[in-house]
């Protein structure tokens, strides 16, 4: 039992990541509102940012800025750089998504998935 608790506590960052990931994914699947879907998508993506950043940390490591002390331990800066790129990608995705939602609103007058579906099927008959 203690071992299990230790394992959960020692890898708490992964638990947070998985929790966020599932929350985002659930919102994405369960909500019919397109804006809420995008919120879910953003949370989903952000959980991956946390995954990368938390694995770049080294116990006792300092910020990766060169010190005079030759024995200094640095955190791994590479995941941060990667995630900087991924954040930009995430922003681009969200903004393209929001732009589409704006145009969907203009075209259909609603951002609810089921109403859009209803409008389309009614038009077909």
């Amino acid at each position, binding site marked *: 039992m203690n071992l299990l608790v230790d394992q959960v506590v020692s890898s708490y960052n992964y638990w947070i990541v998985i929790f966020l990931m599932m929350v985002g994914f659930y919102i994405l699947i369960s909500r019919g509102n397109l804006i809420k879907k995008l919120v879910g998508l953003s949370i989903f993506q952000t959980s991956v940012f946390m995954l990368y950043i938390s694995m770049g940390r080294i116990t006792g490591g300092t910020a990766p800025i060169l010190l005079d002390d030759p024995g200094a331990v640095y955190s791994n800066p590479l995941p941060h750089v990667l995630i900087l790129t991924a954040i930009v990608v995430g922003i681009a995705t969200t903004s393209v998504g929001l732009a589409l939602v704006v145009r969907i609103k203009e*075209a259909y007058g609603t951002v609810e998935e089921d109403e859009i579906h209803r409008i389309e099927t009614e038009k077909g008959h």
Partner: protein
Amino acid sequence: MAEHFPILQVVVPLLLAPFCFLVRHGKVAWTLAVFGSLSALFISLNLLATVLASGPLSYAVGGWPPPFGIEYRIDAVNAWVLVLVSTVAAMVAPYAQASVEREVEARRIPLFYAAFLLCLAGLLGIAATGDVFNVFVFLEISSLSAYALISLGQDRRALTAAFRYLVMGSIGATFIVIGIGLLYAMTGTLNMADLAERIPEIADTRTVKVAYGFLAVGFFLKLALFPLHLWLPNAYTFAPSAVTAFLAATATKVAVYMLLRFSLTLFGAAFSFDVMRLDRILLLLAVVAIFSMSLVAIFQVNVKRLLAYSSVAQIGYMILGLSFASVTGLTATLLHLFNHALMKGALFMVLGCVAYRIGSVHIDAMAGLGKRMPLTMAAFVAGGLSLVGVPLTVGFISKWYLILGALEKGWWPVAGIVLVTSVMALVYVWRVVESAYFREFPRGDEKVAEAPFVLLAPTWALIFLNVYFGINAGRTIGAAESAARMLMEAVS
């Protein structure tokens, strides 16, 4: 100059895109797009010649040597993918002008070409790079611009199709980043050659297996493998014709390439097939995809949607070849990757010609077009025969190898399914042919003339390639075989 070719073909379209956006002039933007895609074609043909003559090329971006910097690595596999993508782009770009003028609002045309160039740069980047995180970045560049391109369709359903593609595509891309992150955590490298070296030592850990699962599902979403294909039919149906022709011929093919590269070069055939049993999953999904999607295609009344479902089925053929886990099967996959791009590109371009003249691609609206637009519909027949797999077309070559691969394994039922679904392809192609040639033109003497030359020339150029590589197949088969051998033996 020539030593920078591996990066230049990506950089040229990438840098031209903002100019399209800035000039705000349709014609200038179009010229830039044509220039960008022709230069990419020139460079990729050059690269292919170099690779075939003197082996793989490695290019260190920014002068940082691999594995520390980003490496661009061109070998016998991705040189072909680069040629494929840039060939289709070089055909679609000249074609786009007339087609896009008819289908896209004038003020959005420069933006269209900007997105087109970005999408091209992204697809070329995915194929050229030897760095896994770079793959993700280019994947998002190509996908985001593809969403924008699809949303430019005339019908408002293009918007919902693009949104759905955005959601599913982003989930796929995020799964891929998770996989890449787990691999990085285990190996400490992002360079593909480095990863290929380090993964076997730690292949037996759960993290690597989970990473494989995330990557595979991400690629399945991107390449529209049944049942993760739901974004595709609407996206292809409602996008502007030129966009459908371009994306159908390139985007899913590049995703198939990513799957091959990751599962065979990085993880190795032994791990993918013996440990993860990728072949069994793929065999099942591919057979269901081929059969069910061909069946669905038969009942479509919108010809664009018909061909979109047919695309999902055809992707099934590529995946079927991979599921044989043999050199012959993989040869079939690579051949069909190339060949399907040629035929679907051509067929969707034909539909663009039809939409240009009659404004619809409904099967009933196409009645009697065989007489009104003889050259256009002849191109459809030729492309359709290639899709069915009639001898003297490229479709025959890839199906031949697919059946060879199945028989090599002793899987008679699978070979039977390939034949039966080819007949189903004949049925859905025939429905269009029947409407165009054996029904009367419904609207009396209304003037519907042949499509203009600027649309017909690129369409027929692709049809010509369909027949050329169908008759003169030695070269593509040889290249696909050596590429397949390289992929299968990368580790063992």
